[in-house]
């Protein structure tokens, strides 16, 4: 369980301090699929980075099963990320000089997993193991990044606008893979999106605006085929 309590975060631009998160509190259950929904600039990506341990917060606490990660030293935080979390980003963030297989191995290596081909097969990339990111389409690259995230067997998967750079068909396929893997492996999935339709896929929808949570509702998840785009 992730317990977020009164988290605040500001950025300084010259003399001007810009408060991005204004005292956010939230609890996410293990195995839950939560969507953070909001317009650009609402603070959802910053919030995702803060609760995943990628960024330090100014005030408040973020606890994983009772352990406050905000009090951890850098080395402990690295070990925490290594063990618990994985990420899927809008811009994929694949290493261009490594093949699809080796990109996935980056995640697998952390848990001592040798064979990553089944993971690539699971995301529909059989036969493309030796391709470089530049030789793959956007959707295929995003699937590599999903396989890379899943390869490290995370307890929590953070996805920041994972369909943001994809067309509708590719985006839908990508979400099918992602949600199927989340359900099958009972991973906690926290996804950021500004798309109301995609939000309908989650167990819970947390709406954000101007650095605050404006609503937090349980949802009866729809399937990818049921939603509009």
């Amino acid at each position, binding site marked *: 369980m992730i317990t977020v309590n009164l988290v605040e975060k500001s950025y300084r631009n010259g003399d001007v301090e810009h408060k991005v998160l204004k005292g956010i509190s939230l609890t996410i259950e293990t195995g839950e699929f939560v969507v953070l929904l909001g317009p650009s600039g609402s603070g959802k990506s910053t919030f995702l980075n803060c609760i995943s341990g*990628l960024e330090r917060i100014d005030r408040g606490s973020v606890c994983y099963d009772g352990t406050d990660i905000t009090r951890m030293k*850098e080395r402990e935080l690295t070990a*925490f990320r290594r063990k618990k979390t994985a*990420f899927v980003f809008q811009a994929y963030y694949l290493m261009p*000089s*490594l093949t699809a297989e*080796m990109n996935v191995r980056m995640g697998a290596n*952390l848990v001592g997993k040798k064979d990553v081909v089944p993971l690539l097969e699971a995301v529909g990339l059989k036969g493309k193991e030796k391709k470089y990111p*530049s030789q793959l389409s956007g959707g295929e690259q995003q699937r590599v990044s999903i396989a890379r995230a899943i390869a490290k067997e995370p307890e929590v998967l953070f996805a920041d606008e994972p369909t943001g750079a994809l067309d509708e068909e590719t985006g839908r396929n990508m979400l099918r893979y992602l949600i199927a893997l989340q359900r099958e492996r009972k991973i906690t999935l926290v996804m950021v999106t500004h798309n109301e339709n995609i939000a309908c896929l989650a167990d819970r929808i947390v709406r954000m605006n101007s650095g605050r949570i404006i609503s937090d509702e349980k949802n009866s998840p729809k399937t990818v085929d049921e939603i509009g785009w």
Partner: protein
Amino acid sequence: MITIKDLRKAFGLSFVVLCAVYLGALFESFRLDQLELDPSAFDELAKALYEAQLAQAKMMNIIALGVIGAFAVVTLVFSVSKYVDDNRANMGILKAIGYTDFQISVKFVLFGLNALVGGLVGYLACLATVPAFYAEMNEGSGYPAVTFSFRLSVPLFYVVVPAVAFSLLGVLFAYRKLKRSPLDLIRGTERQGKTKKMKEGKTFLSTLRKTVLFRHGSLILFVGFAALCFGGTVQMSFSMDGFGVSPMFFWMMFLIAILLGVSVLYLAFSFLFQANKEYVSLLKAFGYSDAECVKALFGGYVSVSVIGFAVGTVYQIGIIYLIIELFKDVAELTYTFSVNGFFIALGLFVFTFAVIALYFFKKLKLLTLKKAW
């Protein structure tokens, strides 16, 4: 577009040119002044020393212009390439709104300023050391003292010509680098078929280490050259100490090699760090430790350094035998391998490598995905 601040970042180029010009101008001035003398009136021994010193000056010129000069060209290409890569989005936008490749690349003429500054400082340093250097060379020569005369041809050839040549080369190489579509430059996509292929290793980290190493082929040359400076020239200053060379020669060689080696290694690692920031930040986000990231980044260069140092050791032995050959009619020089010199040079190189890697290790700790991508 290119500012003086940008040129400051290419200080490595100025420094390499400085070393080449300093050594080249010093020995060339001496050689030209020596040629003013008439050796026919000298006795046999003085004549032999005269010939040997002429040959030595020629050899030092070859090293200065050939080895260090060629390396200065590599540094220029590297600096221009780095500048284009760092500013590719801006250049892509300029191309997109209608600027031609030539209009953009002509600004790179300013890189000649780096060579001009390095050349000027090198030449001034040469003038400053001329009295001590000439006194050293004249001591016990057995023929009339060589006196310094100012010749315009020396600063022209060693300062002005390289500055002009480097300006033109800068423009030419930038022009070549900009031969990509505006969109490719803006997005930062590699040229078709230009993606550097992965080098397979036993584990993910060893694959990454090898890939990083071969992704930046020119850096192998840089790190190898830095190791060669220590293994070759630093070691040579100790080896030649056995010939009874003056402290001035010892320190001249020692300091030039150390400064050249340190600055080239720093330059190479700084580029390596900049070029792989994205990789490292991603590794960190996924939970790889800072130590694992440093190993992936710099680890591949350990073997390059070992090879560079070994080549440097052999190179300095070769040069010493060449000097013995040059002076065989004048003095009986015997060479014994300096074990102390070997270990001091090795120790200094390992220390330099470790300190620079540690500096980037500290920088790496502050790296986040947000800052890097």
